[in-house]
């Protein structure tokens, strides 16, 4: 019994650590800045970082297969720029949104095909995807384009008041991330696709020898990440009501850091999307603590994220060593 308990603690150790650190960070923040004790401060984490959560979900799947997707920020920026340009041309948002999702999925599919059929490292292919998407966004417009579409404005500016908290509200696009998270958990744990993703990450050759459709799954994973990036782009353009090729520069690193903090191994095979949620919440908490402080400058966010990533990698390798021993 104790042995089983020990094993389960070891298995979920990284995730439990992530959750504990998030709670600790939030409690410390709430002690320092009473404004963070309001429920609204908690929901703001989701409102401000919803797009990060969506990107993180796609990235988690890619990293679980042992790959990496550096193109997420580029596809996000391209989506904002393209949708702003199309909306200004008078295209209905009900056409634009599905079109953007199709575009993102297609880009992901293309990158996945390059990775699988030409056997190039995911890293260099998605780097090209990043360049290409940002470049296309700049070709669409060199400056920031404002969105004036009524539906986008409605989605951006209508708060939904939450039932159990006084005066706490979120916006409609905020719900996209958590909804996608539920779908992702289902995908990862209860479908053939999800289990094959884990199998590939653990050992691609074994997965192929077992007869799993390795190639198809890998391509689909990149397509999923492209879809998530486009979805994040739509959420991002709604929240800022603008489109620009320079949006979200360097976001790929934030996302990878969040995924790593969430306990997913970059070698693939180990990790889950729930961890990614808490990884992103930790980053969001740090950012909001720095904002509440006001005197600490923004560059501390980057240093904090870097140091935290380092600590988490240390924790991960510690748990991995223990697991091997027991």
């Amino acid at each position, binding site marked *: 019994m104790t042995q089983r308990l020990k094993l389960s603690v070891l298995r979920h150790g990284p995730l439990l650590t992530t959750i504990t650190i998030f709670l600790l960070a939030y409690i410390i923040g709430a002690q320092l800045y009473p404004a963070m004790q309001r429920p609204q401060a908690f929901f703001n984490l989701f409102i401000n970082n919803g797009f990060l959560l969506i990107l993180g979900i796609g990235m988690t799947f890619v990293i679980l297969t042992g790959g990496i997707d550096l193109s997420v920020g580029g596809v996000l920026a391209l989506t904002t720029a393209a949708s702003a340009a199309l909306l200004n041309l008078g295209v209905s948002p009900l056409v634009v949104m599905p079109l953007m999702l199709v575009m993102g999925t297609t880009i992901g599919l293309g990158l996945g095909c390059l990775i699988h059929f030409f056997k190039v490292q995911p890293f260099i292919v998605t*780097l090209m995807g990043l360049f290409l998407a940002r*470049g296309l966004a700049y070709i669409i417009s060199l400056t920031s384009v404002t969105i004036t579409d009524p539906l986008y404005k409605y989605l951006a500016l209508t708060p939904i008041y939450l039932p159990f908290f006084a005066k706490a509200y979120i916006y409609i696009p905020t719900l996209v991330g958590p909804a996608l998270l539920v779908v992702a958990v289902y995908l990862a744990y209860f479908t053939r696709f999800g289990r094959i993703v884990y199998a590939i990450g653990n050992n691609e050759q074994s997965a192929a020898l077992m007869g799993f459709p390795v190639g198809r799954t890998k391509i689909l994973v990149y397509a999923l990440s492209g879809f998530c990036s486009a979805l994040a782009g739509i959420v991002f353009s709604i929240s800022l009501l603008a489109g620009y090729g320079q949006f979200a520069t360097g976001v790929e690193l934030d996302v990878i850091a969040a995924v790593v903090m969430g306990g997913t191994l970059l070698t693939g095979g180990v990790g889950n999307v729930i961890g990614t949620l808490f990884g992103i919440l930790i980053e969001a908490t740090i950012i909001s603590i720095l904002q509440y402080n006001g005197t600490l400058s923004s560059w501390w966010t980057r240093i904090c994220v870097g140091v935290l990533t380092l600590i988490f990698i240390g924790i991960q390798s510690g748990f991995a060593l223990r697991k091997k021993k027991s």
Partner: protein
Amino acid sequence: MNNRISFSRIRESRLFWVLTAWAVILGFNALFVPGFFRINVQDGHLYGNLIDVLNNGAPLMLVAIGMTLVIATGGIDLSVGAVMAISAAMGAVLINPAPGDKLVSNEILTRNATNTPLAIIVIATLAAGTLCGLWNGLLVSRAKIQPLVATLILMVAGRGIAQLISNGQIITIYYTPYFWFGNGYILGLPVSIYIVAAVAILAWVGVRKTPIGLFIEAVGLNSKATYYSGISAKNIQLLAYTFSGFCSALAGLILSSYVHSADGNNNGLNYELDAILAVVMGGTMLSGGRFSLLASVIGAIVIWTFTLSMYALGVPANALLAGRAVLVLLVILLYSDRRLIKRRGKSNPAAVQPQDEKPGLPHP
């Protein structure tokens, strides 16, 4: 028969594709960009697009030299851009003639003066970058963190550190002797070219005239076998990352000297991507193993030739990103072609297997 063999040997050579790419771009320029090859002499200095390619491309060439060695060990260094920013910030802060405790007026800041002797500035700048490289090397070789993640940490945190050093300001440099590295001339050619040549020769002598180069390739191909043959893979990795840090620091020095300022956010932006592109174009596999310093340097020159010819055509700098992406795509396709040729040429299919390695795989 003999001819065909020698042709395939040329094609197998690391220099073949990168020189072909360069020739294609230069040929395009000869046809569509009038005056690209014109070189004028003014005040005893050479001016012209080709000289600009060498001068503007110098930081990238330096970074590519360091990156080649790191990639050859099977690693990757994503922090080069951030290290450039750190060393540039270091140089600018040391030059800053404003004393720390007095009221800083614009008049003091814009003085052509310095707090620190130039030699100390250069040494401190290089030391800062080398220290960053050492940190990366320790994380990879001693703490056994995957290179991708280990350098990612410094890539994220490094820009923060650079801003911490420069206190979040874009520091403009007014101290003229400092400009010599990026804008000076020796015998009509920019100083930066001599610096690149010196570092390249140093690196070449280091890797080809001593066993270090062989050890680096051995670590990249199979670090376990290297370990069993009695070579300290750890120290080889440490050396490669430290050297990469040194090269990035030098690149940061030249860049900040060229643009007369230090900006924690934008110094060396996207250099990691360009450097990897240059190295990959130069035929060094990302999985490690055999490498060629010269091919990587030419790869960097190709990137800058392409960039400057697009500028000459009036393509805006930002839109160029898409052009570079097409360049990468071409390189990728060329490489897969090369692999197919190899596969067809060999009767034993297992011989090409070891190249299908995952990026950033931790070395046991």
